[in-house]
């Protein structure tokens, strides 16, 4: 049976991992390659590397890091942050990334997703969406939450699927950094609205939250950062817990 995926997210700045709490206050949590290797050994199912500087001058640092992660890590990983052209994607994939994630640039240029999917296949295109609930609607935000679009989460996800996105990584800005649990209602509605996998992000604080995001949120994968980086939850313990709750999980290799 297809396993639900546990995905640690490494926020990267200058080749090191950091974690932004509610996209603000940044704390250092270690070397990216080392952390990636440890997570793979612990049973992480995939990794996401999110370059939060993404300035043009620092791009080479990211490409080198991607190459080092690809050499050392034997599970799939996604690279995101600042990707705005099909050429960027080509460089990242040729350095060994398995997938890329696009966010703001895909909203500004609706041809970007289709361009990547046509050239490299939908399987490598993850659309990241940051959204916040306003009244009864979930509104899409860009630039790490600083720019409001007025676009509806579900509409944008469905359009992206048509354009060729292979997965949706949905971060609830209302839940991110709170450790109070994932946005279960929005996730469930999103999962029922589209036919591609949904990765849940924002709000992980306990092992029960992960169970809930799979059972109630219908997510295909769950992403978290600080609860893993700072050791509140260990991946082996989390997988044991989820297995005990009858959730399909790839067991940790002994």
């Amino acid at each position: 049976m297809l396993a639900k995926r546990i995905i640690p997210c490494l926020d990267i700045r200058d080749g090191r991992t950091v974690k932004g709490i509610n996209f603000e206050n940044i704390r250092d949590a270690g070397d990216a390659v080392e952390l990636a290797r440890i997570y793979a050994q612990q049973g992480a199912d995939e990794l996401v590397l999110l370059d939060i500087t993404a300035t043009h001058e620092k791009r080479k640092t990211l490409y080198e890091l991607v190459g080092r992660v690809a050499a050392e890590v034997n599970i799939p990983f996604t690279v995101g942050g600042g990707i705005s052209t099909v050429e960027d994607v080509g460089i990242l994939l040729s350095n060994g990334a398995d997938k890329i994630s696009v966010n703001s640039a895909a909203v500004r240029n609706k041809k970007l997703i289709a361009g990547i999917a046509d050239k490299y296949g939908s399987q490598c295109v993850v659309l990241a969406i940051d959204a916040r609930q306003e009244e009864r609607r979930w509104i899409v935000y860009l630039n790490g939450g600083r720019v409001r679009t007025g676009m509806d989460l579900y509409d944008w996800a469905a359009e992206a699927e048509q354009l060729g996105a292979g997965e949706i990584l949905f971060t609830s800005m209302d839940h991110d950094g709170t450790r109070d649990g994932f946005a279960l209602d929005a996730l469930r509605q999103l999962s029922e609205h589209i036919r591609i996998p949904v990765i849940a992000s924002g709000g992980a604080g306990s092992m029960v939250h992960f169970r809930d995001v799979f059972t109630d949120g219908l997510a295909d994968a769950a992403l978290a950062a600080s609860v893993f980086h700072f050791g509140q939850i260990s991946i082996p313990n989390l997988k044991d817990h989820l297995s005990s709750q009858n959730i399909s999980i790839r067991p940790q290799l002994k």
Partner: protein
Amino acid sequence: MKVVIIDYGAGNTRSVQLALERIGVHARLTAEADEIREAEKVIFPGVGHARSAMDVLRNKKLDTLIPSLRQPVLGICLGMQLLCTHSEEGDTPCLGIFDEQVKLFPASGKVPHMGWNTAAVSDGTALFPAGWYYFVHSYYVPLSSYTVLSCDYITGFAAAIQRDNFYGVQFHPEKSGKAGEVLLANFLKL
């Protein structure tokens, strides 16, 4: 040992090469007929669309070379599918080593089939241990007498196939953790 990875512009060749490095084997990326013919082991990877991949194989005359190979050949993901007779993806005639029709998953579940799933032994060989492997695909090879590992997603399908010196895996051993590295090492020991 001389190992080559057929390099025809279809995706994950670098990942396969890096996975082999991790188990201590340097493989060359090549599309040269002589180099492929002389290799002891040939890996035929692939990610992307069946039709564009077959177009490239034909342009490079690899469509006649690959079926003529006598050493062990391992097709990975799209590479495995291209070893079959035909793919529904772009209604594409393929290499015809396995007399199988590659089909699109029915729309009753999420497509692509993406993530870790269990492959079970249908016809046991030590080369293909049962276990958890990483899959990413929208098309599948049906179960048949060639099937050595089977998987279930929406329908039962072939996770691994074998005929003579030709092997195929639908999953990505190069991204399947330790289990994938064991499988690649087993293939290289053939």
